[in-house]
C-alpha cells in the first residue's frame, strides 16, 4: 500500500485523506493489531536505572502482555514473558523489586533471573526426573536493545535491529536521552512511573503525540492559567520567535514529530524565570550545548511518536509515554519522566513539580487531552457514527523532501508550520505505516529501505 487505499481497502484511504472509525473501535481489527503490529514492532520496556543491581526487576508490558525486565546474576539484561510455562500463571506479581528466583504461586515452578527453569516441585517423584528443564525456560523476547539506558524489545526475530528500525529518527529520541548540555546519554529517570487507564483506543493518544498542533485550543485554559515553568502559558517557547516550526515524518519507518529548527547563530532564550537557580542551570546547559560540534544544537524537541506506541516529549516536560493497549476501548498509559543526572537537586525538584503539574492523570494539560480522546472514542462507537470516516486532509500534497535551512537538513517529509500552523502529515504517516503492518505478511515487505539499498547496489554492479 502506498498512499492509496490500504488495509481492507477503504479503511485507511490516504488518497482521499479519510480513515474509517472502525480502526479505532472494531474488536476484530484490535485483535489482529496485536499480532500484526505489537508482536512485530520494537516496544519500549523501561530504563536500565530501574534495574541497577543483579536480581533487580521491573514488570513492564508489551502490547497487552505482561513482561519482566530483569538483570540476572551476571548483570545481563533480559525481558521475559511474565507467564509460567506450566499453566501460564504470572510468575511475578510485583511492580518491581529484587529477587533470586521468580516462583509461580500456582504449582511452584521457579525460574532464575536468567529465565532458566530451576525448580520443579516433585521433580524426582512425579516427573521421575524425566522432564527436560532446559526446554521450559521463561519465554524471552527475540531481540533486545539497550540504547542510552533505555530498554527496547521485539518478539520478532526477523525484525531489523532497533537502531535500523529507528532510522533517522534517532536524533529526535536523543533529544530526551542526552544531557541538556549535549553530552550523550545523561538522562536519569525521576520518580516512579505514572500508570493509569483511559477509555479510548491506543491510537488516539498515539495520533495526538505524532504532532497534533491543531488541538492547541483545547489547552487554552492551561495557557491562561500559566502552568508553565515561567508562570505563563504551558511551556517556555521563546525560541519560537526565531525558529522554524516543522512537522517531520519518516514514511518508511512510521515515526513522526514536531520539531523546532533554530537559526545557525541563535542566542539562548530566557526560560524558567520562576526560579533563578533553574534558569541559570539551563542557561549554562544551552551555552555548553552550542559549543559542541554538529547541528543537533539547532534542534529543539517537541511532541513526537515512535511507531507504534511510544510518545516523546523532549522538552517541558521531558518524558516518554507508552500507550499500552488493553482492549479496543481501553489504553493503559505509562509515563516516564527524565532529568539530567548531574543537575542540582533543586533543579530536579523544580522539574518534578512542573512535570506533575503538566502531565499524567493529575496533570492539567494531559487532563485536557484525555477528555478529548475519551469522548471522541465513545462518540465513535455507535452504529451510525461508524459509517462516517474521519478526515486527515489537512496539508495533503504540501510536504517536501530534502528540507534544508542554512545548513540544517531534515530527514523524511517535512511541512513548515511556521505559517501553516498545523498539518495532518504526521497522522497520515502514522496510519500509512499502521496499514502497512496490518497488511504485510513479513518484515521483508516492511523494510523498503533495504530493497532500495539492494537495488542501488545491484545497479552499481
Amino acid at each position, binding site marked *: 500500500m502506498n498512499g492509496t487505499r490500504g488495509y481492507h481497502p477503504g479503511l485507511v484511504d490516504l488518497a482521499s485523506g479519510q480513515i474509517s472509525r472502525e480502526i479505532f473501535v472494531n474488536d476484530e481489527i484490535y485483535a489482529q493489531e496485536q499480532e500484526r503490529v505489537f508482536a512485530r514492532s520494537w516496544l519500549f520496556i523501561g530504563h536500565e536505572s530501574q534495574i541497577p543491581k543483579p536480581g533487580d526487576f521491573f514488570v513492564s508490558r508489551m502490547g497487552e502482555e505482561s513482561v519482566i525486565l530483569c538483570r540476572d546474576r551476571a548483570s545481563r539484561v533480559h525481558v521475559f514473558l511474565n507467564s509460567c510455562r506450566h499453566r501460564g500463571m504470572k510468575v511475578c506479581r510485583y511492580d518491581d523489586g529484587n529477587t533470586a*528466583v521468580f*516462583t509461580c*504461586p500456582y504449582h511452584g515452578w*521457579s525460574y532464575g533471573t536468567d529465565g532458566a527453569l530451576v*525448580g520443579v*516441585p516433585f521433580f524426582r517423584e512425579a516427573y521421575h526426573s524425566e522432564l527436560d528443564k532446559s526446554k521450559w525456560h521463561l519465554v524471552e523476547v527475540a531481540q533486545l536493545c539497550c540504547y542510552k539506558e533505555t530498554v527496547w524489545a521485539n518478539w520478532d526475530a526477523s525484525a531489523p535491529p532497533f537502531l535500523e528500525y529507528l532510522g533517522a529518527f534517532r536524533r529526535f529520541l536523543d533529544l530526551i536521552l542526552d544531557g541538556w548540555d549535549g553530552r550523550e546519554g545523561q538522562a536519569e529517570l525521576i520518580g516512579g512511573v505514572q500508570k493509569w487507564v483511559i477509555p479510548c483506543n491506543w491510537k488516539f493518544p498515539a495520533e495526538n503525540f505524532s504532532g497534533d498542533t491543531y488541538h492547541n485550543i483545547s489547552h487554552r485554559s492551561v495557557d491562561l492559567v500559566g502552568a508553565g515553568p515561567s508562570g505563563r502559558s504551558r511551556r517556555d517557547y521563546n525560541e519560537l520567535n526565531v525558529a522554524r516550526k516543522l512537522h517531520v515524518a519518516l514514511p518508511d519507518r512510521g515515526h513522526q514529530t514536531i520539531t523546532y529548527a533554530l537559526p545557525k547563530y541563535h542566542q539562548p532564550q530566557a526560560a524558567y524565570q520562576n526560579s533563578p537557580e533553574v534558569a541559570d542551570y539551563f542557561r549554562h546547559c544551552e551555552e555548553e550545548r552550542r559549543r559542541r560540534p554538529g547541528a543537533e544544537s539547532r534542534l529543539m524537541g517537541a511532541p513526537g511518536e515512535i511507531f507504534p506506541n511510544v510518545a516523546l516529549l523532549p522538552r517541558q516536560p521531558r518524558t516518554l509515554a507508552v500507550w499500552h493497549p488493553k482492549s479496543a476501548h481501553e489504553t493503559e498509559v505509562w509515563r516516564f519522566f527524565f532529568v539530567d543526572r548531574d543537575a542540582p537537586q533543586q533543579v530536579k525538584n523544580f522539574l518534578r513539580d512542573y512535570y506533575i503539574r503538566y502531565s499524567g492523570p493529575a496533570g492539567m494539560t494531559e487532563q485536557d487531552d484525555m477528555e478529548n480522546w475519551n469522548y471522541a472514542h465513545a462518540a465513535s462507537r455507535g452504529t451510525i457514527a461508524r459509517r462516517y470516516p474521519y478526515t486527515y486532509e489537512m496539508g495533503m500534497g504540501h510536504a517536501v523532501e530534502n528540507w534544508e535551512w542554512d545548513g540544517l537538513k531534515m530527514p523524511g517529509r517535512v511541512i513548515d508550520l511556521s505559517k501553516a500552523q498545523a498539518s495532518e502529515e504526521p497522522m497520515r504517516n502514522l496510519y500509512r505505516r499502521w496499514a502497512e503492518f496490518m497488511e504485510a505478511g513479513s518484515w521483508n515487505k516492511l523494510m523498503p529501505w533495504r530493497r532500495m539499498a539492494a537495488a542501488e547496489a545491484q545497479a552499481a554492479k
Partner: protein
Amino acid sequence: MSYPINIRDLPVGARVMLATGAEVEIVSNPEDGVWLFGRYLSSADDPAMVGQEDMIFAQDVVAVRS
C-alpha cells in the same frame, strides 16, 4: 498429617528434615514461601546428594532441626 511449616521464617543456617529423611542446611531463603536453597547434610536414599546444593520445595520440608 503434620502442620505445614512456614519456610519464609527460616534463617540461613537452619537445618530442616525432608520427607525423604534427608537433612539439609539452608544456604539462602528467597522468602517466596515456596522454595529454599539448601545443602544436603545427609541423604539416606541418595547418598550422592550429600554436600550438594539444591532447591528445596516447601512441601518437602517436614521438620525444623535447629
